[in-house]
């Protein structure tokens, strides 16, 4: 091989390494830059309201008074509802008979592909009225003694409906991760459990679930992160309320949804920075749940038990 060719090759190797490195560093830089940029834009609001922002429920754009209290509450409540998705998704993937599982798995993944704006639109026109006319009255009648299930309001736009939409969005995430976890539990361990005269439920609960607990927790955190950050579908069905109510059937709002709803109309001095402040809170919550999910998922790997 000629010396020139060798030189050319070394140059080529270095060049490839260089641009790959740059691309990778860029990825890291983007994350850092995002955090920096969002915080920077929020600064006017952060310095004005400080940490009191987190608890104050006042949201009056015209008076330049802002507080995230009711939004944090709305975010927490609607996402908590979506946690039902965990049991549904798990159930579906682990316990349904093998034939059912095979057909349902690809369909459930299809559910994940539906854009949130369409799901939200469907929520406005189909789900919300249905919930308003059938589900809310029924729940209020049977379980009305619990303050969560107060009287239905004028429309079905409520925290409850938003929670339902979020549940629908989170189920595919949990279901598909659970399915992968389930397939990762070795066949022979499940056989060993069956051979001891255990029912299907006992095998799943005694052997499959414990082997996948951390994976399930990680999946739940990922699903939770998705629910926390959903802006569009939530804003379409939650009714943009500003107060905290105990009843799920009242309107409310979440951090992400408020940003989406009010950003384009933010004219007063502290309005936009306050929306950015909401973004900072959302960013922190999102990063924490994502990091937790990864940390837990990594620590308790099924394979780690063996030496």
């Amino acid at each position, binding site marked *: 091989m000629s010396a020139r060719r060798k030189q050319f090759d070394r140059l080529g190797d270095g060049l490839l390494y260089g641009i790959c490195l740059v691309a990778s560093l860029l990825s890291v830089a983007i994350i850092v830059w995002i955090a920096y940029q969002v915080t*920077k834009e929020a600064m006017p609001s952060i310095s004005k309201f400080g940490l009191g922002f987190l608890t104050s429920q006042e949201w009056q754009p015209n008076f330049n008074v802002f507080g995230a209290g009711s939004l944090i509450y709305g975010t927490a409540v609607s996402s908590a509802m979506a946690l039902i998705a965990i049991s549904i998704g798990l159930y579906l993937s682990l*316990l349904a008979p093998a034939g059912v599982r095979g057909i349902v798995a690809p369909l459930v993944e299809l559910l994940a592909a539906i854009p949130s704006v369409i799901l939200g639109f469907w929520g406005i026109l189909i789900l919300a009225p249905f919930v308003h006319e059938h589900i809310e009255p029924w729940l209020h009648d049977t379980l009305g003694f619990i303050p969560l299930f107060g009287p239905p309001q004028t429309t079905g736009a409520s925290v409850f409906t938003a929670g339902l939409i979020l549940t629908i969005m989170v189920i595919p995430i949990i279901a598909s991760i659970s399915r992968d976890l389930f397939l990762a539990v070795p066949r022979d361990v499940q056989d060993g459990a069956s051979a001891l005269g255990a029912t299907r439920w*006992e095998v799943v609960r005694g052997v499959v679930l414990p082997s996948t607990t951390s994976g399930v927790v990680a999946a739940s955190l990922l699903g939770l992160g998705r629910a926390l950050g959903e802006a569009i579908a939530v804003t379409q069905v939650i009714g943009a309320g500003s107060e905290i109510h105990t009843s799920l059937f009242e309107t409310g709002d979440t951090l992400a949804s408020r940003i989406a709803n009010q950003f384009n109309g933010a004219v007063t001095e502290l309005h936009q920075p306050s929306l950015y402040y909401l973004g900072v809170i959302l960013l922190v919550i999102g990063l924490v749940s994502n990091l937790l999910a990864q940390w837990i998922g990594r620590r308790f790997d099924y394979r780690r038990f063996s030496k």
Partner: protein
Amino acid sequence: MSGPVPDPAAPLTPSGNLRRRQIFSRVAESGATVAAIIAVAVLGIVIYTVVSRGAAAISFDFLFTGTPTGIGPAIVGTGLIVAVATAIAMPLGILVAIYLTEFAGSRMAGPIRLALDLMNGLPSIIIGLFVFGILVNHRHQSGFAGSVALAIIELPLIARGTQEVLLLVPGSMREAADALGVSRWRSVLGVILPSALGGIVTATVLAVARAAGETAPLIIVDSIFDGKSVSLNPFEVVPNIPVTIFTLSEEANPEGFTRAWGSGLVLVSFILFASLGARALLARSKRKMPT
């Protein structure tokens, strides 16, 4: 020590507490089946609604003219925005994946993988806020800003998908190239990448399917348009489908609703077509993979 040990010669019907346990297990299994049916039913209802109501809106005019009769410019706009986004994200994603599989030691790989995972889990509205701050603030909305936002969404998906296929390339291939004295860059570009091409295309198509449906960032950076005419300049506001649907959904105008369903049908059709196509591609390329 006594225990409920069944008489071996007794018939093979449930003994001891088995009857109760079997009932419980069967109930749990049916519950799971019910949950599965509900999930599929929801999917069915949503798709059915989109198709039945959306079909009413579809016509030649709907697809090829602008507001108020159609969403032609929005369709072109989405195509433009997503194309630019992919043009940004695809090379970057492939390069990052190459770095992670071919070059990086574990010390460098850790933070980079973490950054990609965080990027993947970031609420898209935050990405919108970010791009607003760097490209729209003090300037004006643009399709390009939308593309940058979508590129950030696509990047981790393409990088991860590419990484997965690169890892599938057998080590023997790399060793063979080394043994022949072929330089790194030649073997990567000439041998490894081409064999992973199917997987890379699949990952990209799936990323495109995901990005095409994203509304939140576009609401922030590319939402003020009237959709009357086609715009091919990404540095101005570009009409797009997701924002169109969102705007129409928030207005209390039944005619608007019909157009929104129609737009939804177009969008869902594209996404489903792309997703299914990608998976078919993946299945085909896996069959071709050397084992």
